[in-house]
């Protein structure tokens, strides 16, 4: 039962342009959402998060938007840089009382930033 979905397995973007990664979820109980970046042979690295009480959170080049009614969130990277080439995972938490920290991940989106 995949409750977090990233429907685009890959994304190619030119350096300097905007990268937009999308994520959908099915469980309305999710209360907290996170984005992780993963390079080969490394563990996922935390990027940015957003609580369900907000609709936007910004950190430098990274902005996450949350649309609760649509059960959809997106990550915007502006401007995209070659070092951003990695797999990006969307994760959700808080599906039930006392279950914090049980992150549920999407399948990931491979981002390739071209010169």
């Amino acid at each position, binding site marked *: 039962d995949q409750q*977090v979905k*990233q429907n685009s397995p890959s994304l190619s973007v030119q350096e300097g342009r905007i990268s937009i990664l999308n994520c959908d979820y099915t469980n309305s109980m999710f209360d*907290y959402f*996170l984005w*992780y970046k993963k390079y080969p*042979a*490394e*563990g*996922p*690295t*935390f990027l940015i*998060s957003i609580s369900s009480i907000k609709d936007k959170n910004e950190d430098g080049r990274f902005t996450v938007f949350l649309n609760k009614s649509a059960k959809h969130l997106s990550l915007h990277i502006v401007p995209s840089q070659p070092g951003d080439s990695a797999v990006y*995972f969307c*994760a959700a*938490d*808080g599906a039930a009382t*006392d*279950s*914090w*920290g*049980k*992150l*549920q*991940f*999407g*399948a*990931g989106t491979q981002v390739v930033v071209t010169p």
Partner: protein
Amino acid sequence: DAGVTQSPTHLIKTRGQQVTLRCSPKSGHDTVSWYQQALGQGPQFIFQYYEEEERQRGNFPDRFSGHQFPNYSSELNVNALLLGDSALYLCASSFRTGSEQYFGPGTRLTVT
């Protein structure tokens, strides 16, 4: 400040064998979670340890067990290995059972 460390990096086992993977959390963290990542998929939650007890568990069989030590480090044990257990096993640590987890580099387990 050392991040999350895991050992070993790679491991090859035969079907039916048992394996133990180890994890040391980031300094200041007291909670350890384990995830299994199959090829082409996102990490799947196995279980979480806090105060030396299993606090939460995902949809994994009892063949998967764990332990947390007083120094907050943790072990993941898998018995009666199946070919389908071949995956990257990730350890993540956090302060209390919070959402922002910091991951180690993982242990690549291959079952033949």
